């Protein structure tokens, strides 16, 4: 099976700052890839380049065997590769339902279908009872779900999730992890940047570790947490805590 996403020698520099350098990996359809690394490792920059937010300085991104390196984020999103943001970015004056419906409409759904699809998605992510509220009134956990709901309205084949668990207290995390698992079970390929190792271990088929913009390690979760370089650069004794959880 050919990979659904293929990143080859990707690099991004801002002036003299090399944020990402020579990163390569493949993601198979339906796979879940966790991306971890210390702050400033280049994880979000990698996502931004992959999602078309800005062009990489070097390297290529292929999606469904097509070179999409120069595609805009909007074009990629309509094609099914969708990203979410670490800081939630709802359309504040719109209702929760409208936030999701506008994404469905962007995919090409007619107004009535867009509303119906948005409603179904809100039920699935557990936000249906907030449907008529303005999105700026949602609590953090609700906003995270809204980000996911909006992305799901685009019928993604690949989801790039940037710290979807950040800002959530431990009791709020598990329902979101369960939601991500159900999205994966529907055949959506997930790439997610995350600091919560519990989620990385529970969700990932493979883990990519970045450090100083470069690939430090790549492998299954158990291989990565056992890697001494990863422990030294990022995990420290956290891996022990994860194992004991």
């Amino acid at each position, binding site marked *: 099976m050919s990979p659904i996403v293929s990143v080859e020698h990707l690099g991004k520099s801002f002036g003299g700052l090399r944020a990402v350098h020579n990163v390569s990996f493949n993601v198979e359809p339906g796979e879940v890839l966790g991306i971890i690394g210390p702050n400033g490792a280049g994880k979000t920059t990698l996502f931004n380049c992959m999602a078309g937010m800005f062009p990489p300085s070097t390297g290529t991104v292929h999606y469904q065997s097509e070179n999409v390196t120069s595609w805009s984020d*909007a074009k990629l999103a309509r094609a099914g590769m969708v990203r979410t943001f670490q800081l939630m970015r709802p359309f504040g*004056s719109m209702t929760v339902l409208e936030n999701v419906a506008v994404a469905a409409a962007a*995919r090409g759904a007619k107004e009535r279908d867009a509303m119906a699809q948005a409603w179904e998605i809100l039920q699935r992510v557990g936000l*249906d009872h907030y449907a008529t509220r303005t999105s700026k009134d949602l609590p953090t956990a609700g906003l995270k779900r809204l980000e996911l709901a909006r992305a799901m309205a685009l019928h993604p084949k690949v989801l790039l999730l940037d710290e979807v668990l950040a800002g959530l207290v431990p009791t709020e995390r598990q329902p979101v992890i369960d939601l991500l698992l159900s999205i994966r079970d529907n055949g959506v390929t997930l790439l997610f940047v995350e600091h919560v190792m519990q989620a990385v271990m529970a969700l990932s088929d493979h883990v990519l570790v970045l450090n100083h913009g470069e690939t430090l390690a790549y492998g299954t979760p158990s291989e990565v947490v056992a890697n001494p370089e990863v422990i030294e650069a990022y995990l420290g004794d956290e891996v022990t805590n994860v194992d004991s959880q």
Partner: protein
Amino acid sequence: MSETLIQTVPSPLHKKKFFDGNMVALVIIVAAVVPLPLLLESGQESVAIRILIFAMLGLSWNIMSGFGGMFSFGHAAYFGLGAYSSSILLVNFGISPWIGMIVGMAVAAVYGVIVGWLCFRYKLKGTYFALATFAFAEMLRIIVQSSQAVNAAVGYNVPLIKGSSWWLMQFPAGSPNYFWLGLILLTGCLLATIMFARSKTGQFAVAIREDEEAASSIGIPVLRYKLKVIAISASIGAVAGVFYTQFYLFIDPELAFGAYRSIEAILIPVVGGVGTIWGPLVGSVLLAPLNDITAAILRNPPPFLDFLQGQSGLDVMLYAVLIILVILFLPKGIFGSIKDKVTRK
């Protein structure tokens, strides 16, 4: 989930009615004001017509800057292009202002798209975008003012005809038809705004206004929709310009493209309610009569305002006071603040 919560959620599967609250309000307002020119004196009717022109201009600004979030300081350009397109076609070729209006709308839309594209191409946003729109409008004013091909600073007098003609948009002074013509055009502009607000383009415009990057990340082609919104806004501004010329039977570069016109376009929705359908109408009802009220006061001031006799500029001072009061106490404008309070209850 509780029964109550389930009940608060609307069924998204019901078809949205064409005659929603805004459409009903439009029908009621139009029906209520149709007999107005038969009840007003001639001077009062011209104030009422100015309200209609102000409302169209305000609606135009509101679509681009209120719904679309692209702050325009150069709406005089759209107004002026409409006014000049129809005047040139009527005076030089005898073409009906209705055709002139369509041409003016197209010219203004194309101009708006070109200026918008240039601004976005060079990533101008916020204040810089506003300044660019102002600069382009001023550029048009200067070009027209110094170009003999369009009568330079002299402008155009609309040739008078005998009797009435709807085709030429001209009626005897004091005719109620002017008001009804303006009302038809304003109704069209309001209808366009209502349809815009509920359309995909309107929803995308609001999403882009709220967060351009997030809008792009969900697949909205941001540039295309921004330009589309500018084109719609510019077209409505041109309609205001055409009707203005046909009512006052005169246009010159300052009246058409002057900065004062752009400021009016901003003040109307700011006072009434930016980003709302009815805000510009409320703003125009308040602001349009100011000129006449202040002129009357200055002509014949009450004893305690004797010192104002023969002075000018009172309307500008009142504009300033009004805008300060609105920003301080009703930052969402009069209609916007009322709407906010009602929806929060």
